[in-house]
């Protein structure tokens, strides 16, 4: 086996093995456990940097193993895969740091970090899957490995959330399985190919392919939290903050959105999907989700619940970008995969900091928190402004390309959706900022766990990650035009998906 | 119709009686007896059918001998179990299915 074949496996192993080792570690060996965690995360990042460099220079990283006749386990590190892998590996590293700080002295850490590593392994598998079958395997493994994290606290509420989560995701998995088996029956091994593979089947299959598309999108839509399949996400808020960060920014929701991307671009091919008139329904579903999520977010007082509804809304920007026929819309959708990730993880890190430092869970308790925790609140502000789409932050770039894409796809009503959504974003984020910065504190904090020390508002491990991601939000916007920005990578992907498009 | 066919038909009737008894009788001794009636029926069918042309066939006869021994073994084990049940519950019948074990509506 050559190095290029081994690399995708090594990327998987760099979180799988630490995960398995951590399971077997006794609870009190926290230093060794952190060491394994960080070593795995670092190694994964190094491997990915090496592979990014290779992909830019035309190297191919492909691993294939035949499980059953005509059924291959296939890993391919192409441009789209690398985008998602890089995002999740980088955010995993930060989330691990954050989680070490967040869970200090709490019980069952071996179990937590073990499943945490398995969860990232599954995400990386989803990202590098080279065909629908491999994608499905890791999509289901992701469900299994996140369940213990959702119910980690073991409270009645957590257990209920776990049940809801399982019901939704396993149901979605079943639909995805049917769609996948059906497609394999029609077209043999469905390998992800730029420009899609199904156009070659011929017009007599159009009806079946439309049904299959519906099944696949419904299956993926559960994790991507498309309305009306979003019910699990707000419930899953009971999980600890690092888990929420994982669910919303790194793994689960992203896996769904990423899957929609793969199906539209590399299974059907965006042009063929357009020809089958599948894109308009998807755009409508995404738009409904965007508005609905924002509306629901307005009325939440629980900070993490508000952020959860915000995620429902924001992730659908990705699906919307996919549904806008034309390369500009595609760029908007692909780049938002990254931008939403770094912005939303910032917000969740901050929410976790408020809860862990001062015991603040509700927005109505946030009066004056900006003075007590200025750095956290700065990071939160950057994330919120990014979400609203204030230039020059990352969110603005996404929305700009989505708007242009809507015009290009001749769907001007989408502009109205974007505008309404931005106004709603502002409506549910600005009051929080106003409370945090401008209202005076009148009472004591609900539960102050971490006292102010030498001008440091909270533990370092809790503060550094949101500051880094907030900085990334600013940089991704400011330097969008540079050669290593997410936007540039998205342009590269878009250029390859549109066969007839000349940039 | 010749004698062997009459054996076979009798065997068929015994089989049916035996099966019916095995399913419907509640007392375990009756069930065990019904099993033996059923077995005898099968043996009669086996031997009867095989020699319906009038030529005796040693192969099914040997098979029936084997079958009889197996039936003895099964009967002995069944009796031992029935005896245990009698010792423990004072009854020679199987307890009704416990409620909720095989019912959804309890």
């Amino acid at each position, binding site marked *: 086996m050559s190095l290029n074949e081994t690399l995708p496996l090594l990327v998987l192993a760099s979180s799988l093995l630490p995960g398995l080792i951590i399971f077997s570690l006794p609870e009190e060996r926290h230093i060794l456990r952190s060491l394994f965690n960080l070593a795995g995360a670092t190694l994964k990042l190094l491997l990915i940097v090496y592979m990014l460099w290779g992909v830019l220079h035309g190297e191919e990283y492909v691993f294939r193993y035949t499980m*059953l006749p005509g059924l291959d386990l296939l890993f391919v590190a192409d441009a789209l895969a690398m985008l998602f892998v890089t995002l999740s590996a980088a955010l995993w590293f930060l989330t691990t740091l954050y989680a070490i700080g967040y869970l200090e002295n709490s019980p069952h850490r071996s179990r937590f970090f073990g499943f945490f590593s398995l969860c990232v392994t599954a995400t990386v598998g989803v990202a590098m899957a080279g065909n629908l079958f491999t994608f499905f395997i890791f999509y289901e493994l992701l469900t299994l490995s996140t369940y213990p994290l959702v119910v980690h606290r073991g409270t009645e509420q957590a257990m209920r959330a776990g049940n809801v989560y399982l019901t939704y995701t396993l149901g979605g998995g079943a639909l995805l399985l049917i769609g996948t088996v059906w497609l394999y029956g029609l077209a043999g091994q469905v390998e992800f190919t730029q420009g899609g593979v199904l156009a070659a089947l011929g017009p007599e299959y159009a009806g079946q392919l439309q049904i299959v598309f519906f099944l696949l999108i419904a299956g993926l839509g559960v994790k991507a939290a498309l309305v009306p399949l979003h019910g699990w996400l707000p419930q899953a808020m009971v999980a600890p903050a690092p888990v929420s960060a994982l669910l919303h920014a790194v793994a689960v929701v992203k896996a769904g959105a990423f899957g929609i991307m793969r199906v539209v671009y590399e299974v059907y091919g965006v042009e063929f999907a357009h020809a089958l008139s599948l894109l308009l329904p998807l755009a409508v579903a995404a738009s409904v989700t965007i508005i609905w999520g924002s509306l629901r977010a307005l009325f939440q007082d629980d900070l993490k619940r508000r952020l959860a509804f915000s995620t429902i809304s924001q992730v659908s920007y990705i699906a919307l970008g996919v549904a806008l026929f034309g390369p500009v819309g595609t760029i908007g959708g692909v780049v938002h995969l990254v931008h939403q990730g770094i912005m939303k993880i910032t917000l969740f890190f901050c929410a976790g900091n408020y809860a862990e430092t001062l015991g603040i869970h509700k927005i109505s308790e946030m009066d004056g928190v900006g003075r007590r925790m200025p750095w956290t609140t700065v990071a939160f502000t950057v994330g919120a402004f990014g979400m609203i789409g204030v230039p020059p932050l990352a969110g603005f770039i996404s929305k700009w390309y989505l708007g242009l894409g809507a015009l290009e796809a001749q769907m001007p009503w989408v502009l109205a959706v974007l505008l309404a959504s931005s106004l709603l974003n502002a409506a549910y984020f600005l009051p929080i900022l106003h409370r945090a910065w401008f209202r005076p504190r009148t009472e004591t904090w609900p539960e102050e766990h971490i006292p102010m020390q030498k001008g440091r508002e909270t533990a370092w491990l809790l503060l550094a990650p949101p500051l880094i991601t907030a900085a990334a939000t600013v940089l991704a916007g400011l330097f969008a035009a540079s050669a290593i920005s997410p936007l540039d990578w998205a342009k590269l992907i878009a250029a390859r998906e549109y066969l007839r498009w000349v940039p | 119709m010749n004698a062997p066919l009459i054996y076979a038909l009798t065997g068929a009737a015994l089989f049916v009686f035996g099966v019916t008894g095995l399913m419907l009788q509640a007392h375990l001794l009756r069930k065990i007896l019904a099993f033996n009636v059923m077995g005898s029926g099968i043996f009669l069918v*086996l031997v009867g059918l095989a020699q319906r042309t009038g030529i005796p066939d040693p192969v099914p006869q040997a098979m029936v001998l084997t079958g009889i021994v197996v039936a003895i073994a099964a009967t002995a084990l069944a009796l031992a179990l029935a005896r245990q049940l009698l010792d423990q519950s004072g009854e020679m019948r199987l307890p009704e299915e416990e409620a909720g*074990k095989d019912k959804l509506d309890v």
Partner: protein
Amino acid sequence: MFDPIPWLILSPLIWATLAFVQGPGRGGRLAVAGVALQLALAATLAQQIIAGGARVYAVGGWGAPLGIDLAADGLSAVMLLLTQAVALPLAFYARAYFAAHAAPLRYFWPLTGYLLAAMNALFLSADVFNIYVTLELLGLAAVGLVAVAGGAGPVSAAMRYLLATLLGSGAYLLGVALLYGVYGSVSLAALAPLIAADAPTAVSLAAALMLLGLMLKTALFPFHFWLPPAHGNAPAPVSALLSALVIKASFYLILRLWFDLFAPIASVTAAQFLGALGAGAVIWGSLLALRQTHLKMLVAYSTVAQVGYLFLIFPLATGAAAEVAASAWQGGALQAVAHGLAKAAMFAAAGAMIAATGRDEIAGLAGVATRLPLTLFTFVLAGMTIMGLPPSGGFSAKWLLLGAALASGQWWWIVVMLAGGLLSAAYVFKVLRQAFLPAEEAAHFKPLPRTLEWPAFLLALASLLLGLWASEMLNLLGAA
């Protein structure tokens, strides 16, 4: 060339009888050595079949139809390998289990030996009357094992099981009698070419009787009434053996009869009927599993449900295009093997949990995730195959069956399989959910020996790896 066929039958017979002579409670070491030897024999046979194709062995040198033939092809080799591969870890497990339990071990080892001898003989037999004898040997050994624990529950379960299995073999034997009456032979090789589409009524009746009898022994819905009490009340190693292997033996015979002997008279209607019973088993068994309050009863009802999947082979493979039929057949065989490994692991894990907590109720499992992580992990891995989640053996089986259903346009079986998958997830997670709860203050966990945890884990791991190595197994299965 050394021929492993007769030794696969003689080895368990010999060590079982010697263990009996040794006396009550003895024979564990003998059993472990014997099963290990049998595993090697089965592997040798599998290699020989891959290299040289199917084999026939004439006992006594006479040859069918006068004598009795043994026959080994890919399917029998797969079943033989499965049997020994499940039995070996369970032998280690049983030694630890009975050492930890005051439960009366008595004649567990000789009974197990005869059970294995019966199964090996059954998988190798090519003579319908000889199969009857092996079926009775198997049934009596299984009943004896269910009853070893004693007490009203196990004894009445054993009695119910005995009556069911006797009725089943009675129906089967009457079918054999009719076949002999019509054709004058009991050899599969002699009968197969004689049975044609225009066979007399007696042959169809014989087929129906034999299949019904075997369905009763396989505990196919609605004949499943005896299984949950028998498998739920037996000691854990026994439950594991019965659920993983014994019901597979009668299922193996149904496969043989349907596809080899009675293929010319097998109708699509009958196949759909069998499939419908299977569907009933999947749904009903899963629903009841979900309702159980006791861990082993839950696992036992799960077996009722999983048996249902096996019977989807018949509608999918009968009267279908060759490629679809092959896919259904492979999927069914894979399901049988995957379930065998996973269910053995699951019962063994359940036994370990019960031994540690001292309680059989699911409600008593709180804290297991912290105290018995390896055993819970075993349960999860086995659960993946039961739920049909990738990349387990159960998933590969489901994939093949789903593919066959789609390709033959029989969408109704897809609905059944998906519903069954979701329901099984519901009952597996019912256990996991409880295990993740914090332990009660008063809960006392007995420390477990490693030999009680690792064999189960290895079995579960094997059920998972089967998903990745399925090609090898299908390769052996296809060797003719």
